[in-house]
């Protein structure tokens, strides 16, 4: 007994054949039980049926006694003379067996066992059989359609599957269980074929269906439902290792960006029943078979997914391993280092298989409608390095290639299928010059047109800002600037303060903090660092006022703020900032991270900085003189910079009595002039909505001009770019359509000319930018800014001079980009490897391999596929080792059935839907999973290996989530498209198959239910762990949807015109969630619980949209019921 305690892992399948059945003598048992296993695991690989090194076989004791070229290996009764003992006890290679690199030395206990056995006379069964010829292994023999067995229980048989199953039943004395109930069958079919539960309406319809063929109709309908493709794609994505990319940070190390195209191809192909052999051919070689068909090229995501940024060997190792495991059920990866220990595959076989893939690489092809490969594109493979040699690695060590011999592509002869001749494939020109695809150029043209429109829109916006500037400003006339244009009419009140700072009048100003200096007749605040420096006006201030401050900011460590405060309490803010219990500010900040103007206020020592409209980004710069005018009327505040209105807001803070201050915070600044007067009663102020500008206002006329120049230049660039693309396109088209020389020449010249004009436009744009920077530069940056303008001017001059120049013979026009290879870093992680060219030929290797794999005579391909399909319908495979059909794997439980199904698959034209239909129509599939106590079958075959009942399947992780959403009626039906990013998954209602799924980004909920590993997942686990219970009891997924599920069930009760009693609800909930009716005691307990829930105060309050508190709780219980998560 094994107690993991925490984790309980189970498999619903198992055979365990011990040696109990052998009726041998005790001594012989000793050999079979203790000796033979040692020989088998440590010696057979080289001294058995597979190989006979030293002409020795040890697979029977008799042959060991016969010996090989070194004489008898076993001398009964005399261990010391037995070569076997001598060799396993030898100290050094090559004497020692197993030899170095072939296995660890035998343990002392193992040697002791061998010795004692020989000492005792090497007893063994007389009829001991040698190992069978490995080439005669069942899976390597051709598939022959077996005759359908005649069985006694013919009435039970619905199709030949059942005949094969019944034959085994009859052999072992098993009786098949009855058919499952209609409801169970319906739920089984739905989950199995589309991965979703039937809706209450679908359930009702089926229950009412009197037709005899309701089952077949339902199955057929589900096979035609597009959800079928989503469901079964996820299965094949497990086997084919679907993975979105992952890496460190944003570094692409595995898989490919946009690999979801391959997922969509899988879904679509399954839905249209694309033959399985054709699917394999497309996945391995669509680039050779359909070189210009992007839809089909998506299939090669199968190979593109193996991409690995840093190491080609790891990449190809994955490719070889999983091509052979997925399609052939062969563990070819073992032969990377040495000959296969179980299958007749030499080390060479690995490298021969690798050679098919040696030339391939990955690229992204441009798709119609998207010119940016970062956003979308088709990841696909192509042969980039046709001449790269494949070498055998000595003992698998990639650092030690055997360069004496290049290994050509090849396949093991063992399977009796000849490799089609490898013939290079000439690719149509659009495949290797993808820029010729019609949409590439037209999309570029469209894109350029879009860019031109954006540039024009930008220009229009700037013009609008400038015209706004013009309507609100008039030229400066006085030192403090013009009267506010918003002031209309006369009746102007004289200023109460006019301060030109010719001296610091301490009668007028109280100084609080700061370092103040008079130099050259101006007042400068020199204190640096995040502190306040304040000039407080000692005289009363009108309630509604207009204050104007002219200043220049010189610097500061970070915030660089200067402004006017009012309604300020009389405490000293520099001593104790929390002492300020009321104050309002309007200030500008030249903070590099976002210069702005802000109206803020302090309330009980706490500063508040309200968002727009009380704040607006504003290009305030150092070393420039600005005039800030603040108008305050009650709680409405207006502010102007240089006469331009920049702020209009209402302060939420009530007006209070207080003083007015000028202040800086973390700023060195010059104060030039200040004026204060009562606000003209007729002054019209701006309302916050009046100033809703799209962009920060322009503060200077020079700025406006510079911005305008840049925007105009940008339009010119976009326009020149469009012309250049159009003319370059004409030039390329002339070349591609081989128009006459002179025509080619003239279009070429026009394209060159357009390119030169584009350069001029770009140079002009650069110059406009440089001029703008020069204008903005602070005095210390002026020289370098001027230098930049000079360089830009010179560059423009050169560009202009180049326009009329003669066209040089070697001048070229750039290619359009139709595809881009995925850069690797095999040589150095610092830089991409040189890009390979797209070649007009592909080696033809992969298409030959694909044809070989899909040859109907291949003994493995169909068997492996059939086994995968069977596994997912029944939960248990026919061949338990789904990726190892070799001698180390397990034999099929139903060999003839396996071969019959394989023949069906092949003969139906590899139609998977044909197989699905056959399987779900069988009586075997329709068996009930309910086993009464003391059922005799249980004793004969407790693990149900011989399929006398249905083995329930735990829902796969994706299905658990999808089922909850579907029951709630909120599943988003959209199909396909980019994978849903981790951050969006919690709110997404899409099917789980569309979730981003990689090695390091996995959905937590799905992970708990044995989600597929992306590295390999030929079969899902079906663990039972307590975290699953926690997820189903506590996750938002479940809790958020209880209400909707309860509501739908209640609605369906009403629709079916049952009574709306609790009993009807419980019955319907059981039916919809568990596909059965409750037993008497189940019903009783549920009704009792409903009554108890109703007694709780929460029930009356109702906390959901539907106010079905008690019902929601019942749904919670049923979603956690064993029968919910099991597909029975």
């Amino acid at each position: 007994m094994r107690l993991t305690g925490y984790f309980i892992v189970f498999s619903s399948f198992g055979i365990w054949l011990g040696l109990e059945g052998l009726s041998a003598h005790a001594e012989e048992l000793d050999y079979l039980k203790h000796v033979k296993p040692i020989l088998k695991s440590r010696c057979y690989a080289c001294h058995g049926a597979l190989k006979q090194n030293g002409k020795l076989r040890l697979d029977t004791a008799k042959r060991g006694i016969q010996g090989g070229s070194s004489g008898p290996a076993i001398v009964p009764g005399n261990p010391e003379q037995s070569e076997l003992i001598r060799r396993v006890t030898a100290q050094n290679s090559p004497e020692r067996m197993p030899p170095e690199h072939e296995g660890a030395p035998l343990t002392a206990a193992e040697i002791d066992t061998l010795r004692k056995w020989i000492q005792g006379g090497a007893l063994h069964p007389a009829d001991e059989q040698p190992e069978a010829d490995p080439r005669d292994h069942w899976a390597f023999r051709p598939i022959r359609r077996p005759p359908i067995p005649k069985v006694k229980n013919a009435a039970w048989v619905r199709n030949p599957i059942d005949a094969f199953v019944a034959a085994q039943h009859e052999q072992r004395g098993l009786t098949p269980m009855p058919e499952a109930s209609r409801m169970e069958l319906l739920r089984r079919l739905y989950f199995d074929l589309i991965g979703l539960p039937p809706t209450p309406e679908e359930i009702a319809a089926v229950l009412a269906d009197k037709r005899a063929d309701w089952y077949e109709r339902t199955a057929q309908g589900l096979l035609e439902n597009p959800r079928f493709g989503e469901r079964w794609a996820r299965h094949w994505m497990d086997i084919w290792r679907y993975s979105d990319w992952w890496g460190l940070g944003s570094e692409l190390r595995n898989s490919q960006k946009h690999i979801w195209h391959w997922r969509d191809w899988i879904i679509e192909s399954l839905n249209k029943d694309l033959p399985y052999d054709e699917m394999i051919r497309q996945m391995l070689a669509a680039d050779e078979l359909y070189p210009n068909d992007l839809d089909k090229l998506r299939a090669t995501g199968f190979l593109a997914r193996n991409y690995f940024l840093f190491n080609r060997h790891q990449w190809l190792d994955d490719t070889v391993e999983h091509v052979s495991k997925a399609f052939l059920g062969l563990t070819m990866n073992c032969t990377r280092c040495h000959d296969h220990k179980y299958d007749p595959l030499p080390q060479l076989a690995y490298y021969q298989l690798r050679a098919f893939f040696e030339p391939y690489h990955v690229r992204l092809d441009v798709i119609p409608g998207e010119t940016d490969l970062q956003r979308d594109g088709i990841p696909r493979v192509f042969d980039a390095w046709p001449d790269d040699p494949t070498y055998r690695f000595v003992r698998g060590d990639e650092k030690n290639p055997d360069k004496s011999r290049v290994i050509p592509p090849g396949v093991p002869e063992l399977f009796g299928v000849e490799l089609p001749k490898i013939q290079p494939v000439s690719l149509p020109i659009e495949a290797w010059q993808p820029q010729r695809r019609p949409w590439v150029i037209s999309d570029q043209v469209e894109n350029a047109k879009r860019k031109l429109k954006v540039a024009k829109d930008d220009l229009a916006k700037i013009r609008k800002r400038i015209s706004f500037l013009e309507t609100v400003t008039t030229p400066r006339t006085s030192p403090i600037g013009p009267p506010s244009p918003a002031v209309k009419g006369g009746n102007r009140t004289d200023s109460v303060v006019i301060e030109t700072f010719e001296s610091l009048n301490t009668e007028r100003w109280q100084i609080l903090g700061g370092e103040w200096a008079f130099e050259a007749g101006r007042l400068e605040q020199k204190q640096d660092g995040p502190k306040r420096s304040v000039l407080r006006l000692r005289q009363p201030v009108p309630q509604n006022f207009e204050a104007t401050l002219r200043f220049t900011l010189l610097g500061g460590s970070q915030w660089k703020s200067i402004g006017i405060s009012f309604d300020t309490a009389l405490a000293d803010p520099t001593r104790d900032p929390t002492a300020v219990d009321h104050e309002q500010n309007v200030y500008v900040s030249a903070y590099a991270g976002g210069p702005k103007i802000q109206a803020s206020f302090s309330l009980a020592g706490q500063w508040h900085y309200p968002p727009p409209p009380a704040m607006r980004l504003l290009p305030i710069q150092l070393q420039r003189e600005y005039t800030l005018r603040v108008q305050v009327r009650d709680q409405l505040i207006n502010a102007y910079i240089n006469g331009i209105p920049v702020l209009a807001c209402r302060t939420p803070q009530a007006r209070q009595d207080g003083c007015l201050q000028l202040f800086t915070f973390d700023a060195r600044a010059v104060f030039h002039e200040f004026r204060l007067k009562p606000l003209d009663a007729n002054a019209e102020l701006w309302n916050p909505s009046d100033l809703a500008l799209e962009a920060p206002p322009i503060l200077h006329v020079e700025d406006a001009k510079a911005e305008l120049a840049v925007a105009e230049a940008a339009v010119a660039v976009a326009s020149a770019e469009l012309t250049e693309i159009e003319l370059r396109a004409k030039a390329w088209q002339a070349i591609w359509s081989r128009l006459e020389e002179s025509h080619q020449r003239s279009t070429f010249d026009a394209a060159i000319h357009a390119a030169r004009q584009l350069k001029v436009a770009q140079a002009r744009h650069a110059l406009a930018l440089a001029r703008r920077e020069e204008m903005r530069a602070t005095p210390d940056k002026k020289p370098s800014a001027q230098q930049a303008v000079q360089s830009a001017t010179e560059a423009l001059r050169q560009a202009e001079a180049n326009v009329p120049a003669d066209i040089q013979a070697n001048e070229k026009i750039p290619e359009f980009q139709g595809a881009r290879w995925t850069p690797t870093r095999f040589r150095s992680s610092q830089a991409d490897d040189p890009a390979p060219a797209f070649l007009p030929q592909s080696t033809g290797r992969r298409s030959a391999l694909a044809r070989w794999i899909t040859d109907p005579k291949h003994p493995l391909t169909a068997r492996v596929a059939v086994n995968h399909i069977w596994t997912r319908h029944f939960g248990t495979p026919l061949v338990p080792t789904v990726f190892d059909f070799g001698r180390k794997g397990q034999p099929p439980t139903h060999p003839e059935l396996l071969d019959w199904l394989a023949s069906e698959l092949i003969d139906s034209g590899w139609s998977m839907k044909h197989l699905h239909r056959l399987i779900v129509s069988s009586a075997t599939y329709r068996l009930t999973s309910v086993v009464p106590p003391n059922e005799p079958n249980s004793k004969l075959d407790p693990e149900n290996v011989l399929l006398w009942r249905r083995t329930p399947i735990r829902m796969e992780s994706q299905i658990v989530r999808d089922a909850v959403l579907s029951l709630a009626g909120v599943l988003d039906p959209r199909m396909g498209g980019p994978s849903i990013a981790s951050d969006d998954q919690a709110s997404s209602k899409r099917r789980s198959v569309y979730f981003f799924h990689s090695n390091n980004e996995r959905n937590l909920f799905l992970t708990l239910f044995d989600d597929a590993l992306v590295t390999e997942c030929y079969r899902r686990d079906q663990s039972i762990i307590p975290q699953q219970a926690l997820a189903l009891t506590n996750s938002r997924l479940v809790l958020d949807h209880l209400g909707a599920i309860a509501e739908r069930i209640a609605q369906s009760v009403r629709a079916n015109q049952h009574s709306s009693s609790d009993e009807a609800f419980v019955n319907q909930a059981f039916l919809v969630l568990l596909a059965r009716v409750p037993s008497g005691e189940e019903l009783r307990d549920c009704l009792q619980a409903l009554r108890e829930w109703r007694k709780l105060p929460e029930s009356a309050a109702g906390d959901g949209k539907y106010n079905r508190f008690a019902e929601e709780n019942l749904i919670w219980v049923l979603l956690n019921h064993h029968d919910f998560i099991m597909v029975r």
Partner: protein
Amino acid sequence: MLDRPSFWTRRQFLSGFAAIATGAILHRDGYGRDGEWVPPDGKPHFPPKAKSVIWLFMNGGMSHVESFDPKPMLNKYAGKTLKETPFSDVLDPKKLAIERLVVPDANGNLRTTLYPLQVGFRKHGQSGIEVSDWFPHIARHIDRIAVIRSMWTTDSNHGAQTQFHSGRHQNDGYFPNLGAWVHYGLASLNDNLPQYISFGRREYWNSRDGHYLGPAHDAVPLRVDPKNPLDFSQPERPVSSQARTIGIDLLQKLNSHRAAVSPQDTVLSARIASYELAFRMQQSIPEAVDFSKETEETKKLYGLDLPHCREFGAQMLAARRLVERGVRFIQVQHGAGGAGAWDAHSSLKTNHQNNALAVDQPVGALLEDLSRRGLLEETIVVFATEFGRTPGSQNGDGRDHHIYGFSVWMAGGGIKGGVVHGATDEIGFHAVEHRHYVTDVHATILKLLGLDSRRLEIPGRKRLDIDHGQPIDEIIA
């Protein structure tokens, strides 16, 4: 609900389980059907010396020469290139050939200008083993510790973390790590708690544990937060606790009705057991990471009052509490994120000082506390890192990755105290005496736990000899 006796008795639970165990893992591909292999039964293969493991891992690569392997020659020849010293033979290409590159980048290169020790060393304890002054608390317990100074590995970049945990180079794919093997091989010590727990963030390349053993053998990540210690441990939306009690009661009734109808359904009984465990875990896990009943002295011992070591201290205290309650394997990662906190390519002195401040006192406290409670005898504490750091300098004041020789230490359950095992050469470059690959640490732990890694092998999942490692018998008491 949790307090009253379970309707499904423990005996039934176990018997249900036994039937499951027969089928356990059988589907894992490639097992032989001729009886040469049986899945583990949860019992040790031979008498164990320890029950639990606390596996501490310093992400980024801790300098061996500034922690547990003093090299005065680095001071003597500081600033000299290797060629100018008597040690130039360390650059023997044959010795360097163990390196297997994943990422040839600016790091993980040879650094040939010797860099002096950035910290002093002092002898400690009866054994007089030298420990650097950055680890005074650990040093106090040196007589309980076996320092292995002769480790080597092959991945010169941080994928060596995967390698340290699983024994396989990243290029070989992903393999189960030691904790997963232990979890796979041994039965539970406490049915109310997960048996393999991890604390601390992990790097993406070692974010999984079970790999082909299956997700059931991944560590359960816990947080030292009694309110929310485990994903989904609390309802993600407010729920009425009374309603829930009624619900759980009903759920158990419904499942037991089913169990009565299908007594042989082992999957059903496992499901019932898993719900019971889940409900018990909802109480036992928060309790295990709730320190309210610990004394002030204990909290101070772990440095919970000190900002620089509070986080790791809490994880150490939680580790002790979990071991006390019967958790098999606790993995604590320090400083994951980016390449790892200890990755001192520059400013090694400040970097290691700060990191040591964060872990030294808590680890010292763990040893002290375990020993006071008599738990150290049955608990193996491992203090490890993916590789050491170069004797030569990088960027003027740092050291690069160094795979040819580095140190780890172990203490507790069956480990000899106060011993130094193995040695690097005079400048700490190559492990020269008793060289140990990382899996030798695994083999030592498995041996102390009573497990034979070869008997845990899953057919078809052949492990290499080096994956199994060799127990370091010299440090086993």
